[in-house]
């Protein structure tokens, strides 16, 4: 890989300053994605700003919710007793990703920002509008088995690979960032974006902005939740399709609240709003779940190698809801 400068600031403003000033500067957290991309020649930073010494590691109960520092590792979050008890969906989603070794290194901020696993993005000899804007999309007429069925554009049909983000999207998390212009909050809904005309942009972070934390609202979905991930092998593979399902049930199996989001289907974690609307106020039945799954599929579009996702996705929604509601 290309030689680069390396620095390891200990205070957040210094890190933001450098990143904001220098175009070729990248934050380095766990490095499990960035270093791979450097080795493959997909990115070539001039400077790495190692943020691991910044005080962003804590996981704290704040108000009714939870604040997860950007440097808390995936393992720390997934195994945290408070997360296990109050946000089990998040724990399940994180543990469905990567391998224990990777989760020990991977951080919350880095996970939110991991790049797509599209083969054409990863191979610098191939065309890719995300890597080199204007070079074309290799996937759209290529091997697009892993690719999007929702919200893609002519320019890009890549998917966001994160499992954690799917749960965060379902749980209405908020991303806290700090940048040259100060601090702000970005709702998960607005954090990742669809490719549209600018597939090179994965998210709405502004230049120099650092993720400092992820905040979760007061826990609601503590019991009837499930994260279902369908993949080509049992572990250590990205999702063909994944579903985060959370139900808030009353005593007579009525659905007080429901959250549904999918991974492996779009350029961002895909929230199933219409299906949620349909289920709210209904009772737990297989038929209701089946109908919700059909509703969720409206607007889906397959490509030559991923047509199967049009069948797999509703099956996965149904199965995730059944498991969350404990019906077999």
């Amino acid at each position, binding site marked *: 890989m290309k030689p680069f400068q390396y620095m390891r600031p200990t205070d957040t403003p210094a890190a933001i300053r450098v990143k904001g000033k220098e175009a070729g500067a990248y934050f380095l957290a766990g490095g499990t994605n960035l270093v791979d991309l450097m080795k493959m020649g997909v990115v070539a930073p001039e400077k790495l700003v190692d943020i691991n010494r910044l005080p962003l590691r804590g996981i704290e109960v704040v108000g009714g919710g939870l604040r997860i520092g950007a440097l808390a590792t995936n393992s720390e979050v997934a195994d945290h007793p408070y997360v296990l008890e109050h946000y089990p969906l998040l724990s399940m989603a994180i543990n469905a990703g990567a391998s224990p070794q990777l989760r020990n290194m991977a951080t919350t901020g880095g996970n939110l920002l991991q790049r797509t696993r599209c083969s054409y993005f990863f191979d610098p000899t191939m065309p890719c509008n995300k890597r080199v804007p204007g070079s074309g999309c290799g996937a759209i007429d290529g091997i697009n088995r892993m690719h999007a069925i929702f919200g893609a554009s002519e320019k890009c049909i890549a998917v966001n690979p994160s499992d954690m983000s799917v749960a965060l999207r379902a749980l209405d998390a908020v991303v806290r960032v700090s940048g040259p212009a100060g601090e702000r909050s970005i709702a998960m809904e607005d954090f990742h974006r669809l490719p549209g005309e600018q597939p090179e942009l994965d998210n709405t972070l502004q230049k120099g902005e650092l993720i400092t934390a992820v905040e979760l609202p007061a826990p609601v979905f503590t019991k009837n939740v499930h994260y279902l991930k*369908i993949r*080509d092998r049992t*572990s250590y593979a990205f999702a063909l399709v994944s579903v985060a399902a959370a139900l808030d049930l009353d005593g007579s199996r009525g659905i007080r609240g429901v959250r549904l989001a999918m991974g492996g289907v779009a350029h961002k974690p895909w929230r199933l709003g219409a299906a949620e609307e349909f289920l709210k106020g209904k009772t737990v039945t297989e038929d209701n779940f089946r109908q919700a799954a059909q509703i969720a599929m409206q607007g889906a579009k397959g490509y030559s190698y991923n047509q199967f996702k049009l*069948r*797999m996705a509703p*099956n*996965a929604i*149904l199965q995730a809801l059944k498991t969350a509601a404990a019906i077999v």
Partner: protein
Amino acid sequence: MNKSLIGDSMSRVDGRLKVTGQAKYSGEYKLPGLAYGVLVPATITKGTITAIDVKAAKRTPGVIEVITPFNFAGLPGFKPDAAQPVRGLKLFNDKSVSFNGQPIALVVAESFEKATYAASLVRATYQEEAFETDFHKNREKGVTPQGGKYKDYLRGEANAYKKAPVVVEQEYLQPSEMHNPMELHVTIASWEGEDKLTVYTKSQGVVSTQRTFSNAFGIKPENVQVNSRFVGGAFGSSLRTWPHEIAAAYAARLVRRPVKVTLTREQMFTLVGYRPFTIQKIGLGATADGKLLGITHESYSQTATYEEFTENSVNCSRFLYDAANCNTLYKVVPLHVGVPAPMRGPGEATGSFALESALDELSYALKMDPIQLRLKNYAERDPERNLPWSSKYLRECYELGAERIGWENRSPRPGSQKEGEWLVGYGIGCGAFGAYRGRALAKIKIMADGSVNIQSATSDIGPGTGTAMTLIASDLLGVPAGKITFELGNSAFPMAPTQGGSSTVSSVGSAVHDACMAIRQKFAALDGQSAEGPLDYVALLQKHSLPYLELTEESQSSEQAKNYSMYSFSAHFAKVHVHPLTGVVKVMRLVAVVDAGRIVSHKTAASQMIGGAVGGIGMVLTEEAIFDDKYGRYVNGNFADYHVPVNADIHQIEAIFIDKPDRYINPLGTKGIGEISLIGVAASVTNAIYNATGKRVRELPVTPDKLI
């Protein structure tokens, strides 16, 4: 002699070294002055290199040399008129590119990192040409391989299956599958003077590697020493000497320093072979009560344009079942891809997937139990060569396996059984692989303190060769295993064949056997006593004031191979769970029952079986190297996207040995297990999936999308 030790369950003699990190693999020799070579791959699929700009690379600090076709001085073995020309790709010898990823330069630098960076700065310009990597599009261009071995086969009437009352005719697809051993391919080459070469390399055959280096550089074989003491898996990928190995030695001679070339995981997808993409058609015809009337097996398999690769994918159909009429056809389809290589169960693994799947399809068409169908067509002698088997206990394999897996719980009606949410199915798949024995030598030396040293230039790519040989010697000599050292992986040792084709115990074990028997004679002769009873080596040496006795024995391949057909046989039984909504498959149990003659070392043999079964699970469920034919490049050429099975994919695997000696193959009565541990696994699983779901998957691997 007391109780026979052969067949014992001894732990690996090198197990401690391996788990404590003390086993030194080929890439770990830190020779003084070592330089590092990194290959630069072509980014086009076919054409000619018109120029290579190495200026930026050469300016990089730490770069010693950049070798390209523009400065390559040639090698004696690369000349077309060489007495022993090097086969296959002759790296840097000309400017043509025949596949994407073909190395076009080698950067040599002071460190791997510096060489890697400099390699990224090498710029080539090409005259590109149209290329073909699309198998389906080019299948009709398949040709019968050169030489008589692969000509069409006919017994009785061709395509007789078509006239039978019950017919199955289907096509089966095996995608390209990568060996992907854990250890990366690596070579360190070091010269003393102009004509003496020492090589540390990942190799399944130090003697054949020695020969290739000697041919390539035009130096005497005895001037080449090849070391490969430990090998971190190979599965066939190190059966031959690859271009990067020769390039390492060329570079080392050029820069006058030892040079190490390590392939990256990505480069291992293009430079060290793979199980080739193959499409097979099987036609089976039977009477209503299940007697096979005809078997037709046609196979079309991918190869490279610059070298022809062949394997025995159709052979099992000729001898595994008794059918009067049988015809086979085998063609290779040259494409602009890297050359394939034998991969565990070469040919037969691919072939048996097709044959055993078709047989299962026939069993449902006949409404007949798949085991009954196999018994009905049991070949009592080899119908291909019309010879008796040297030994065959496949019937016993069926019986034991059926009992162990609980075959009686299988429902003949697909999709009719559930455990919780999961559909349940049972399947059987069988395999056979030639039992070979080649010429091998072993040297034995018994010291005054009673310790024993045995040397043979064989390899141990993982099966536990040293362990098996130690057990044999311990048994025959009556010396405890702890006093015996078996040395391998050095071309200076007495000649042994390459470790492949499941033949090491048969070949090298026979040489060790003969050496032990001969040295017993020699000891016995000292005192004119009989070699039958126990011998006190220490006392005999002392009495005759000898420091040691030693000898070298040579063992030949079996004469009886002319009179008998020699095969190992296996029957694999699978119990699977299939999730009806998600399409996820879990191989809950695999029972492998094997007739491999006498089992010399039970523990390592069982490990072999389990390893083969895991490889089979990869082949059937997860592994597929996928090409984008627009670019001629793999889209999943890395460990994240190419899925070898992980622990979570593996449930219960049981290995059962018939453990009856073969009387004709060798003095030990062993056949071989490395290949049959995998051959037949794939069909056992797809057949079980059909039993569970009623869905017949004929294109591997069976990923979840194919079942929903």
